[in-house]
Protein backbone atom coordinates (compact mmCIF):
# COMPACT_ATOMS: atom_id res chain seq x y z
CA UNK A 1 0.00 0.00 0.00
CA UNK A 2 1.36 3.39 -1.02
CA UNK A 3 0.54 6.30 1.26
CA UNK A 4 0.50 10.02 0.47
CA UNK A 5 0.57 12.56 3.31
CA UNK A 6 -0.15 16.23 2.50
CA UNK A 7 1.35 18.56 5.09
CA UNK A 8 1.02 22.30 5.64
CA UNK A 9 3.37 24.84 7.19
CA UNK A 10 1.46 26.97 9.70
CA UNK A 11 2.02 29.39 12.56
CA UNK A 12 2.93 27.25 15.57
CA UNK A 13 -0.05 26.24 17.72
CA UNK A 14 1.37 27.93 20.81
CA UNK A 15 2.02 31.34 19.26
CA UNK A 16 -0.54 34.02 20.06
CA UNK A 17 -1.18 35.49 16.64
CA UNK A 18 -1.60 39.20 16.11
CA UNK A 19 -3.71 40.91 13.50
CA UNK A 20 -1.79 43.40 11.35
CA UNK A 21 -2.86 46.97 11.97
CA UNK A 22 -3.78 47.51 8.31
CA UNK A 23 -6.25 44.62 8.50
CA UNK A 24 -4.50 42.72 5.70
CA UNK A 25 -3.93 39.55 7.68
CA UNK A 26 -2.11 38.22 10.70
CA UNK A 27 1.55 38.81 11.47
CA UNK A 28 3.62 35.86 10.20
CA UNK A 29 7.11 37.32 9.92
CA UNK A 30 9.62 36.40 12.66
CA UNK A 31 7.15 33.96 14.14
CA UNK A 32 7.70 30.30 14.93
CA UNK A 33 6.31 28.14 12.13
CA UNK A 34 5.62 24.42 12.41
CA UNK A 35 4.03 21.52 10.65
CA UNK A 36 0.25 21.67 11.19
CA UNK A 37 -0.23 19.54 14.36
CA UNK A 38 -2.83 17.32 12.69
CA UNK A 39 -0.39 16.67 9.84
CA UNK A 40 2.23 15.48 12.33
CA UNK A 41 -0.33 12.94 13.47
CA UNK A 42 -0.93 11.99 9.81
CA UNK A 43 2.81 11.55 9.19
CA UNK A 44 3.13 9.48 12.36
CA UNK A 45 0.29 7.21 11.24
CA UNK A 46 1.83 6.70 7.81
CA UNK A 47 5.26 5.92 9.28
CA UNK A 48 3.68 3.43 11.69
CA UNK A 49 1.95 1.73 8.77
CA UNK A 50 5.28 1.41 7.05
CA UNK A 51 7.00 0.12 10.20
CA UNK A 52 4.23 -2.46 10.54
CA UNK A 53 4.83 -3.58 6.97
CA UNK A 54 1.41 -2.39 5.82
CA UNK A 55 2.71 0.55 3.78
CA UNK A 56 5.30 0.00 1.06
CA UNK A 57 6.09 3.66 0.49
CA UNK A 58 5.20 6.92 2.25
CA UNK A 59 5.37 10.20 0.35
CA UNK A 60 4.93 13.59 2.03
CA UNK A 61 3.85 16.56 -0.08
CA UNK A 62 3.48 20.24 0.68
CA UNK A 63 2.12 23.02 -1.48
CA UNK A 64 3.48 26.43 -0.63
CA UNK A 65 6.46 28.78 -0.59
CA UNK A 66 10.07 27.57 -0.38
CA UNK A 67 10.14 27.88 3.42
CA UNK A 68 7.72 24.94 3.65
CA UNK A 69 10.62 22.64 2.79
CA UNK A 70 11.55 22.92 6.46
CA UNK A 71 8.41 20.96 7.33
CA UNK A 72 9.18 18.39 4.62
CA UNK A 73 12.57 17.87 6.33
CA UNK A 74 10.72 17.22 9.59
CA UNK A 75 8.54 14.64 7.83
CA UNK A 76 11.67 12.99 6.38
CA UNK A 77 13.23 12.93 9.84
CA UNK A 78 10.08 11.29 11.20
CA UNK A 79 10.51 8.53 8.64
CA UNK A 80 8.68 9.24 5.37
CA UNK A 81 10.44 7.80 2.30
CA UNK A 82 10.08 10.69 -0.13
CA UNK A 83 9.20 14.38 -0.03
CA UNK A 84 7.63 16.53 -2.72
CA UNK A 85 7.38 20.30 -2.82
CA UNK A 86 4.85 22.02 -5.06
CA UNK A 87 5.86 25.67 -5.26
CA UNK A 88 2.94 28.04 -4.73
CA UNK A 89 2.13 31.32 -3.08
CA UNK A 90 1.02 31.34 0.52
CA UNK A 91 -2.69 31.25 1.30
CA UNK A 92 -3.86 28.77 -1.30
CA UNK A 93 -7.52 27.93 -0.67
CA UNK A 94 -8.63 24.33 0.00
CA UNK A 95 -10.26 23.76 -3.42
CA UNK A 96 -7.00 24.70 -5.14
CA UNK A 97 -5.03 22.54 -2.69
CA UNK A 98 -7.37 19.61 -3.39
CA UNK A 99 -6.99 20.06 -7.16
CA UNK A 100 -3.21 20.09 -6.79
CA UNK A 101 -3.34 16.95 -4.66
CA UNK A 102 -5.52 15.35 -7.32
CA UNK A 103 -2.78 15.98 -9.87
CA UNK A 104 -0.25 14.41 -7.49
CA UNK A 105 -2.56 11.41 -6.97
CA UNK A 106 -2.80 10.99 -10.74
CA UNK A 107 0.97 10.65 -11.02
CA UNK A 108 1.77 8.91 -7.72
CA UNK A 109 -1.23 6.55 -7.59
CA UNK A 110 -1.43 6.23 -3.79
CA UNK A 111 -3.80 3.70 -2.19
CA UNK A 112 -4.35 5.87 0.85
CA UNK A 113 -4.08 9.62 1.45
CA UNK A 114 -3.81 10.69 5.09
CA UNK A 115 -4.46 14.39 5.78
CA UNK A 116 -5.00 16.49 8.87
CA UNK A 117 -8.65 17.17 9.69
CA UNK A 118 -8.01 20.89 9.69
CA UNK A 119 -5.23 23.38 9.21
CA UNK A 120 -4.98 25.42 12.40
CA UNK A 121 -4.45 28.67 10.49
CA UNK A 122 -7.48 28.74 8.18
CA UNK A 123 -9.49 26.27 10.31
CA UNK A 124 -11.28 25.22 7.09
CA UNK A 125 -11.61 21.44 7.52
CA UNK A 126 -12.25 20.92 3.79
CA UNK A 127 -9.26 19.63 1.85
CA UNK A 128 -9.58 15.88 2.51
CA UNK A 129 -13.27 15.78 1.70
CA UNK A 130 -12.71 17.83 -1.46
CA UNK A 131 -9.93 15.55 -2.64
CA UNK A 132 -12.14 12.52 -1.96
CA UNK A 133 -14.87 14.11 -4.10
CA UNK A 134 -12.49 14.94 -6.96
CA UNK A 135 -11.11 11.39 -6.92
CA UNK A 136 -14.51 9.76 -6.38
CA UNK A 137 -12.99 7.89 -3.44
CA UNK A 138 -14.30 6.91 -0.04
CA UNK A 139 -13.59 9.27 2.86
CA UNK A 140 -13.16 8.84 6.59
CA UNK A 141 -12.85 12.19 8.37
CA UNK A 142 -11.71 13.03 11.92
CA UNK A 143 -10.48 9.53 12.62
CA UNK A 144 -9.14 8.35 15.97
CA UNK A 145 -8.43 4.75 14.89
CA UNK A 146 -7.28 3.06 11.69
CA UNK A 147 -6.95 -0.64 10.95
CA UNK A 148 -5.76 -2.05 7.67
CA UNK A 149 -7.32 -5.07 5.99
CA UNK A 150 -7.30 -6.71 2.62
CA UNK A 151 -7.98 -3.97 0.08
CA UNK A 152 -9.84 -1.98 2.72
CA UNK A 153 -9.40 -0.12 5.96
CA UNK A 154 -11.60 0.31 9.01
CA UNK A 155 -11.68 3.67 10.70
CA UNK A 156 -13.30 5.12 13.81
CA UNK A 157 -14.49 8.70 13.44
CA UNK A 158 -14.98 11.23 16.22
CA UNK A 159 -18.46 12.69 15.68
CA UNK A 160 -20.72 15.03 17.65
CA UNK A 161 -22.58 12.18 19.33
CA UNK A 162 -19.56 9.97 20.06
CA UNK A 163 -17.79 7.55 17.72
CA UNK A 164 -18.68 6.05 14.34
CA UNK A 165 -17.02 3.10 12.63
CA UNK A 166 -16.75 2.92 8.83
CA UNK A 167 -15.21 0.46 6.42
CA UNK A 168 -13.59 2.06 3.37
CA UNK A 169 -12.51 0.29 0.20
CA UNK A 170 -9.07 1.40 -1.03
CA UNK A 171 -8.08 3.75 -2.50
CA UNK A 172 -9.42 6.06 0.16
CA UNK A 173 -8.88 9.38 1.89
CA UNK A 174 -8.75 9.84 5.65
CA UNK A 175 -8.34 12.92 7.80
CA UNK A 176 -6.96 12.50 11.29
CA UNK A 177 -8.10 13.80 14.66
CA UNK A 178 -6.04 14.47 17.77
CA UNK A 179 -6.41 11.13 19.48
CA UNK A 180 -5.20 8.86 16.65
CA UNK A 181 -1.64 8.77 17.98
CA UNK A 182 1.06 10.81 19.61
CA UNK A 183 3.63 11.89 17.01
CA UNK A 184 7.27 11.06 17.70
CA UNK A 185 10.04 13.59 18.09
CA UNK A 186 12.55 12.89 15.35
CA UNK A 187 15.96 11.75 16.65
CA UNK A 188 18.99 13.92 15.98
CA UNK A 189 20.72 11.45 13.59
CA UNK A 190 17.50 11.26 11.59
CA UNK A 191 17.27 15.04 11.49
CA UNK A 192 20.85 15.18 10.16
CA UNK A 193 20.12 12.51 7.53
CA UNK A 194 16.92 14.26 6.50
CA UNK A 195 18.91 17.41 5.68
CA UNK A 196 20.71 15.57 2.90
CA UNK A 197 17.72 13.84 1.36
CA UNK A 198 16.44 15.11 -1.99
CA UNK A 199 13.17 17.03 -2.21
CA UNK A 200 11.31 16.55 -5.48
CA UNK A 201 10.17 19.84 -6.96
CA UNK A 202 7.25 20.80 -9.10
CA UNK A 203 4.94 23.81 -9.40
CA UNK A 204 1.31 24.71 -9.89
CA UNK A 205 2.12 25.71 -13.48
CA UNK A 206 3.75 22.39 -14.26
CA UNK A 207 0.75 20.59 -12.83
CA UNK A 208 -1.61 22.89 -14.75
CA UNK A 209 -3.50 24.12 -11.69
CA UNK A 210 -5.54 27.33 -11.78
CA UNK A 211 -5.21 28.58 -8.22
CA UNK A 212 -7.05 31.88 -8.64
CA UNK A 213 -8.59 32.49 -5.20
CA UNK A 214 -12.35 32.11 -5.24
CA UNK A 215 -12.66 33.97 -1.96
CA UNK A 216 -11.39 37.54 -1.82
CA UNK A 217 -10.18 38.49 1.61
CA UNK A 218 -11.80 41.82 2.40
CA UNK A 219 -10.23 42.33 5.83
CA UNK A 220 -8.97 40.62 8.95
CA UNK A 221 -9.88 41.97 12.36
CA UNK A 222 -9.20 41.33 16.02
CA UNK A 223 -11.96 39.42 17.74
CA UNK A 224 -14.20 41.50 19.98
CA UNK A 225 -12.39 41.71 23.30
CA UNK A 226 -14.03 40.43 26.47
CA UNK A 227 -13.80 42.96 29.19
CA UNK A 228 -11.94 41.71 32.21
CA UNK A 229 -13.90 40.36 35.14
CA UNK A 230 -13.34 40.22 38.84
CA UNK A 231 -11.87 37.73 41.26
CA UNK A 232 -14.23 36.57 43.96
CA UNK A 233 -12.83 35.66 47.34
CA UNK A 234 -15.10 32.82 48.34
CA UNK A 235 -17.67 30.32 47.12
CA UNK A 236 -20.33 32.37 48.92
CA UNK A 237 -19.40 35.49 47.00
CA UNK A 238 -19.44 33.53 43.74
CA UNK A 239 -22.92 32.18 44.39
CA UNK A 240 -24.15 35.63 45.42
CA UNK A 241 -22.77 37.24 42.20
CA UNK A 242 -24.18 34.53 39.96
CA UNK A 243 -27.60 34.89 41.56
CA UNK A 244 -27.94 38.62 42.01
CA UNK A 245 -25.52 40.31 39.62
CA UNK A 246 -25.28 38.01 36.61
CA UNK A 247 -28.68 36.44 37.30
CA UNK A 248 -27.70 33.22 35.57
CA UNK A 249 -28.65 30.84 38.37
CA UNK A 250 -31.53 30.74 40.79
Amino acid at each position, binding site marked *: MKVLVPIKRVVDAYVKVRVKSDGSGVETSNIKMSMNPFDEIAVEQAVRLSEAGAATEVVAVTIGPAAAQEQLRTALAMGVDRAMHVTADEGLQP*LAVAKTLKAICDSEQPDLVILGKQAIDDDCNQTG*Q*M*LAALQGWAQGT*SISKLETGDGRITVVREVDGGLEKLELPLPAIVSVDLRLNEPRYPKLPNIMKAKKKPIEQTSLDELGIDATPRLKQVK*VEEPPARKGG*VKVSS*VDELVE*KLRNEAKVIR
Partner: protein
Amino acid sequence: MSAILIYAEHDNSELKSGALSAVACAQEIGGDIDLLITGQGCGDAAKHAATVPGVRKVLLAEGEHLEHHVAENVAPVITALADDYDYVLAAASTGGKNIMPRVAAMLDVQQISDISAVVSPDTFVRPIYAGNAFATYQSTDAKKVITVRTTSFEPVAAGDGSAEIETVDAGSDAGLARFVGAELSDSEGPELTTARIVVSGGRGVGSAENFKLIENLAGKLGAAVGASRAAVDAGYVPNDYQVGQTGKVVAPDLYVAVGISGAIQHMAGMKESKVIVAINKDEEAPIFEVADYGLVADLFEALPELDSKL
Protein backbone atom coordinates in the same frame (compact mmCIF):
# COMPACT_ATOMS: atom_id res chain seq x y z
CA MET B 1 -34.81 36.46 -5.46
CA SER B 2 -32.22 33.93 -4.54
CA ALA B 3 -32.96 30.36 -3.53
CA ILE B 4 -31.31 28.71 -0.55
CA LEU B 5 -31.09 24.97 0.11
CA ILE B 6 -30.32 23.85 3.65
CA TYR B 7 -29.04 20.35 4.35
CA ALA B 8 -30.95 19.95 7.61
CA GLU B 9 -29.74 17.39 10.13
CA HIS B 10 -32.24 15.58 12.34
CA ASP B 11 -32.67 12.64 14.67
CA ASN B 12 -35.44 11.06 12.53
CA SER B 13 -38.17 12.75 14.53
CA GLU B 14 -37.04 16.37 14.82
CA LEU B 15 -34.60 18.81 13.28
CA LYS B 16 -31.40 19.35 15.21
CA SER B 17 -30.91 22.79 16.65
CA GLY B 18 -28.03 23.43 14.21
CA ALA B 19 -30.46 23.17 11.28
CA LEU B 20 -32.61 25.87 12.89
CA SER B 21 -29.53 28.08 13.25
CA ALA B 22 -28.82 27.52 9.56
CA VAL B 23 -32.36 28.73 8.82
CA ALA B 24 -31.67 31.87 10.86
CA CYS B 25 -28.51 32.43 8.84
CA ALA B 26 -30.43 31.87 5.57
CA GLN B 27 -32.98 34.48 6.62
CA GLU B 28 -30.15 36.98 7.05
CA ILE B 29 -28.91 36.18 3.54
CA GLY B 30 -32.47 36.49 2.24
CA GLY B 31 -34.30 34.36 -0.29
CA ASP B 32 -36.59 31.36 -0.70
CA ILE B 33 -35.55 28.73 1.84
CA ASP B 34 -35.97 24.99 1.23
CA LEU B 35 -34.93 22.31 3.71
CA LEU B 36 -33.52 18.97 2.57
CA ILE B 37 -34.05 15.98 4.85
CA THR B 38 -32.15 12.80 3.99
CA GLY B 39 -32.20 9.47 5.78
CA GLN B 40 -34.36 6.42 6.26
CA GLY B 41 -37.57 6.54 8.25
CA CYS B 42 -37.31 10.27 8.79
CA GLY B 43 -40.79 11.32 7.71
CA ASP B 44 -41.45 12.81 11.13
CA ALA B 45 -38.36 14.99 10.86
CA ALA B 46 -39.71 16.25 7.53
CA LYS B 47 -43.04 17.06 9.18
CA HIS B 48 -41.19 18.94 11.89
CA ALA B 49 -39.19 20.79 9.21
CA ALA B 50 -42.46 21.80 7.54
CA THR B 51 -43.46 23.70 10.67
CA VAL B 52 -40.44 26.00 10.53
CA PRO B 53 -41.79 29.46 9.71
CA GLY B 54 -40.61 31.01 6.47
CA VAL B 55 -39.70 27.72 4.84
CA ARG B 56 -40.97 27.40 1.27
CA LYS B 57 -40.61 23.62 0.78
CA VAL B 58 -39.26 20.55 2.53
CA LEU B 59 -37.48 18.08 0.26
CA LEU B 60 -37.36 14.51 1.52
CA ALA B 61 -34.93 11.88 0.22
CA GLU B 62 -35.23 8.48 1.85
CA GLY B 63 -33.33 5.26 1.28
CA GLU B 64 -31.44 2.57 3.15
CA HIS B 65 -28.16 3.92 1.78
CA LEU B 66 -28.94 7.29 3.41
CA GLU B 67 -29.75 5.91 6.86
CA HIS B 68 -26.33 6.62 8.37
CA HIS B 69 -25.64 9.86 6.49
CA VAL B 70 -22.54 8.48 4.75
CA ALA B 71 -21.01 11.43 2.84
CA GLU B 72 -20.50 9.48 -0.40
CA ASN B 73 -24.26 8.83 -0.58
CA VAL B 74 -25.62 12.13 0.74
CA ALA B 75 -23.44 14.52 -1.28
CA PRO B 76 -24.85 13.40 -4.68
CA VAL B 77 -28.43 13.96 -3.44
CA ILE B 78 -27.48 17.56 -2.65
CA THR B 79 -25.55 18.20 -5.86
CA ALA B 80 -28.42 16.79 -7.94
CA LEU B 81 -30.64 19.54 -6.49
CA ALA B 82 -28.04 22.30 -6.50
CA ASP B 83 -28.81 23.61 -10.02
CA ASP B 84 -31.94 25.28 -8.67
CA TYR B 85 -30.18 27.07 -5.83
CA ASP B 86 -27.81 29.98 -5.29
CA TYR B 87 -26.77 28.82 -1.84
CA VAL B 88 -26.30 25.48 -0.13
CA LEU B 89 -26.05 25.74 3.66
CA ALA B 90 -25.57 23.38 6.58
CA ALA B 91 -24.61 23.65 10.21
CA ALA B 92 -20.88 23.36 10.93
CA SER B 93 -21.53 20.17 12.91
CA THR B 94 -19.38 17.08 12.36
CA GLY B 95 -22.06 16.04 9.85
CA GLY B 96 -21.93 19.31 7.92
CA LYS B 97 -18.14 19.37 8.03
CA ASN B 98 -18.02 15.86 6.62
CA ILE B 99 -20.48 16.28 3.77
CA MET B 100 -20.41 19.91 2.60
CA PRO B 101 -16.81 20.12 1.30
CA ARG B 102 -17.57 17.01 -0.76
CA VAL B 103 -20.58 18.86 -2.20
CA ALA B 104 -18.54 22.02 -2.79
CA ALA B 105 -15.79 20.21 -4.69
CA MET B 106 -18.35 18.37 -6.84
CA LEU B 107 -19.81 21.80 -7.73
CA ASP B 108 -16.35 23.35 -8.19
CA VAL B 109 -17.07 25.86 -5.44
CA GLN B 110 -14.75 27.10 -2.69
CA GLN B 111 -16.76 26.49 0.49
CA ILE B 112 -16.89 29.12 3.21
CA SER B 113 -16.60 27.25 6.51
CA ASP B 114 -18.10 28.11 9.84
CA ILE B 115 -19.42 31.60 9.10
CA SER B 116 -20.21 33.79 12.10
CA ALA B 117 -21.88 36.69 10.30
CA VAL B 118 -23.46 37.67 6.99
CA VAL B 119 -22.19 41.04 5.71
CA SER B 120 -23.98 40.98 2.36
CA PRO B 121 -25.29 38.25 0.06
CA ASP B 122 -21.76 37.40 -1.10
CA THR B 123 -19.64 38.50 1.87
CA PHE B 124 -19.25 36.64 5.14
CA VAL B 125 -17.22 36.71 8.34
CA ARG B 126 -15.52 33.65 9.81
CA PRO B 127 -13.06 32.98 12.62
CA ILE B 128 -9.51 31.93 11.72
CA TYR B 129 -6.52 31.01 13.92
CA ALA B 130 -8.71 29.51 16.64
CA GLY B 131 -10.83 32.64 16.77
CA ASN B 132 -7.86 34.91 17.38
CA ALA B 133 -8.85 36.76 14.23
CA PHE B 134 -12.02 37.20 12.20
CA ALA B 135 -11.70 37.33 8.43
CA THR B 136 -14.23 38.82 6.03
CA TYR B 137 -14.39 37.07 2.65
CA GLN B 138 -16.21 37.93 -0.52
CA SER B 139 -17.08 34.87 -2.57
CA THR B 140 -16.67 35.10 -6.34
CA ASP B 141 -18.31 31.72 -6.97
CA ALA B 142 -21.73 31.91 -8.63
CA LYS B 143 -23.04 29.38 -6.14
CA LYS B 144 -22.17 29.60 -2.45
CA VAL B 145 -21.56 26.57 -0.26
CA ILE B 146 -21.51 27.54 3.38
CA THR B 147 -21.35 25.95 6.82
CA VAL B 148 -22.79 27.95 9.68
CA ARG B 149 -21.31 28.51 13.13
CA THR B 150 -24.41 27.63 15.11
CA THR B 151 -23.53 29.70 18.19
CA SER B 152 -23.58 32.85 16.04
CA PHE B 153 -27.17 32.44 14.82
CA GLU B 154 -30.04 32.09 17.28
CA PRO B 155 -32.04 29.05 16.11
CA VAL B 156 -35.50 29.95 14.73
CA ALA B 157 -38.44 28.41 16.56
CA ALA B 158 -40.29 25.69 14.70
CA GLY B 159 -44.03 25.82 15.18
CA ASP B 160 -46.54 27.57 13.02
CA GLY B 161 -45.24 27.11 9.49
CA SER B 162 -46.88 24.69 7.05
CA ALA B 163 -44.55 24.12 4.12
CA GLU B 164 -45.32 21.36 1.64
CA ILE B 165 -43.21 18.20 1.71
CA GLU B 166 -41.90 16.98 -1.63
CA THR B 167 -40.17 13.64 -2.17
CA VAL B 168 -36.97 13.91 -4.20
CA ASP B 169 -34.62 11.43 -5.86
CA ALA B 170 -32.60 9.61 -3.20
CA GLY B 171 -29.96 8.37 -5.63
CA SER B 172 -28.31 5.03 -4.94
CA ASP B 173 -25.53 3.48 -2.88
CA ALA B 174 -22.14 4.71 -4.10
CA GLY B 175 -20.64 1.46 -2.81
CA LEU B 176 -17.81 3.32 -1.07
CA ALA B 177 -17.80 3.85 2.71
CA ARG B 178 -19.86 1.30 4.62
CA PHE B 179 -21.29 2.12 8.04
CA VAL B 180 -20.22 -0.54 10.54
CA GLY B 181 -21.49 0.83 13.82
CA ALA B 182 -21.65 3.72 16.24
CA GLU B 183 -20.82 4.17 19.86
CA LEU B 184 -22.85 7.09 21.04
CA SER B 185 -22.33 8.60 24.48
CA ASP B 186 -25.48 8.37 26.50
CA SER B 187 -24.85 11.45 28.54
CA GLU B 188 -27.76 12.52 30.68
CA GLY B 189 -28.87 16.10 30.79
CA PRO B 190 -28.97 18.72 28.06
CA GLU B 191 -26.99 18.62 24.85
CA LEU B 192 -23.61 20.36 25.10
CA THR B 193 -23.91 22.77 22.17
CA THR B 194 -27.38 24.02 23.07
CA ALA B 195 -27.33 23.91 26.89
CA ARG B 196 -28.04 27.12 28.77
CA ILE B 197 -25.33 26.25 31.28
CA VAL B 198 -22.13 24.25 30.71
CA VAL B 199 -19.76 22.99 33.40
CA SER B 200 -16.41 21.83 32.00
CA GLY B 201 -13.54 20.05 33.68
CA GLY B 202 -9.89 19.96 32.71
CA ARG B 203 -6.71 18.12 33.57
CA GLY B 204 -6.91 19.61 37.06
CA VAL B 205 -9.86 17.31 37.81
CA GLY B 206 -7.34 14.49 37.84
CA SER B 207 -9.34 11.35 37.04
CA ALA B 208 -12.50 9.91 35.54
CA GLU B 209 -13.71 9.23 39.06
CA ASN B 210 -13.21 12.82 40.15
CA PHE B 211 -15.26 13.96 37.17
CA LYS B 212 -18.27 12.98 39.32
CA LEU B 213 -17.70 16.32 41.04
CA ILE B 214 -18.23 18.09 37.72
CA GLU B 215 -21.24 15.92 36.91
CA ASN B 216 -22.84 16.59 40.29
CA LEU B 217 -22.49 20.33 39.89
CA ALA B 218 -23.85 20.10 36.35
CA GLY B 219 -26.78 18.05 37.62
CA LYS B 220 -27.61 20.68 40.22
CA LEU B 221 -27.50 23.48 37.66
CA GLY B 222 -29.31 21.57 34.91
CA ALA B 223 -26.12 21.98 32.90
CA ALA B 224 -24.33 19.98 30.23
CA VAL B 225 -20.85 18.62 30.96
CA GLY B 226 -17.89 19.66 28.81
CA ALA B 227 -14.13 19.14 28.99
CA SER B 228 -10.78 20.33 27.77
CA ARG B 229 -8.73 18.31 25.34
CA ALA B 230 -6.36 17.30 28.14
CA ALA B 231 -9.25 15.78 30.09
CA VAL B 232 -10.44 13.86 27.02
CA ASP B 233 -6.94 12.70 26.09
CA ALA B 234 -6.45 11.44 29.64
CA GLY B 235 -9.63 9.38 29.29
CA TYR B 236 -11.64 11.16 31.99
CA VAL B 237 -14.55 11.68 29.57
CA PRO B 238 -15.47 10.69 25.97
CA ASN B 239 -14.28 12.64 22.91
CA ASP B 240 -17.60 14.34 22.27
CA TYR B 241 -17.22 16.37 25.49
CA GLN B 242 -14.31 18.36 24.06
CA VAL B 243 -14.85 22.09 23.79
CA GLY B 244 -12.51 24.15 21.64
CA GLN B 245 -10.96 24.99 18.29
CA THR B 246 -11.06 21.37 17.22
CA GLY B 247 -13.96 20.23 19.39
CA LYS B 248 -17.37 21.76 19.97
CA VAL B 249 -18.17 25.45 20.06
CA VAL B 250 -20.50 26.50 22.84
CA ALA B 251 -21.95 29.84 23.89
CA PRO B 252 -24.16 29.24 26.90
CA ASP B 253 -25.50 31.85 29.33
CA LEU B 254 -23.08 30.46 31.90
CA TYR B 255 -19.82 28.55 31.34
CA VAL B 256 -18.01 27.20 34.39
CA ALA B 257 -14.40 26.13 33.72
CA VAL B 258 -12.96 23.97 36.49
CA GLY B 259 -9.28 22.97 36.54
CA ILE B 260 -8.81 24.31 33.01
CA SER B 261 -5.83 26.58 32.29
CA GLY B 262 -7.37 28.44 29.34
CA ALA B 263 -5.24 27.53 26.32
CA ILE B 264 -6.19 29.48 23.16
CA GLN B 265 -7.48 26.27 21.61
CA HIS B 266 -9.89 25.77 24.50
CA MET B 267 -11.00 29.40 24.61
CA ALA B 268 -11.82 29.26 20.89
CA GLY B 269 -14.76 27.07 21.85
CA MET B 270 -16.21 29.00 24.79
CA LYS B 271 -15.11 32.64 24.64
CA GLU B 272 -18.51 33.77 23.41
CA SER B 273 -20.34 32.48 26.47
CA LYS B 274 -22.34 35.23 28.17
CA VAL B 275 -20.93 34.71 31.66
CA ILE B 276 -17.71 32.80 32.34
CA VAL B 277 -16.70 31.44 35.72
CA ALA B 278 -13.23 29.99 36.30
CA ILE B 279 -12.20 27.89 39.26
CA ASN B 280 -8.45 27.28 39.28
CA LYS B 281 -5.82 27.06 41.98
CA ASP B 282 -3.28 28.99 39.89
CA GLU B 283 -4.08 32.69 40.00
CA GLU B 284 -1.94 33.24 36.89
CA ALA B 285 -3.97 30.82 34.76
CA PRO B 286 -4.94 32.53 31.45
CA ILE B 287 -8.57 31.44 31.88
CA PHE B 288 -8.93 34.27 34.42
CA GLU B 289 -8.33 36.79 31.60
CA VAL B 290 -11.69 35.90 30.06
CA ALA B 291 -13.56 35.01 33.25
CA ASP B 292 -16.24 37.36 34.55
CA TYR B 293 -15.90 35.72 37.94
CA GLY B 294 -12.67 34.03 38.92
CA LEU B 295 -12.25 31.94 42.04
CA VAL B 296 -8.68 31.04 42.97
CA ALA B 297 -9.22 27.81 44.87
CA ASP B 298 -8.57 24.11 45.01
CA LEU B 299 -11.41 22.54 43.11
CA PHE B 300 -11.61 19.65 45.54
CA GLU B 301 -12.62 22.12 48.24
CA ALA B 302 -14.57 24.60 46.12
CA LEU B 303 -16.81 22.15 44.27
CA PRO B 304 -18.24 20.33 47.31
CA GLU B 305 -18.84 23.69 48.97
CA LEU B 306 -20.50 25.08 45.84
CA ASP B 307 -22.61 21.94 45.62
CA SER B 308 -23.83 22.40 49.18
CA LYS B 309 -24.76 26.03 48.60
CA LEU B 310 -26.86 25.63 45.49
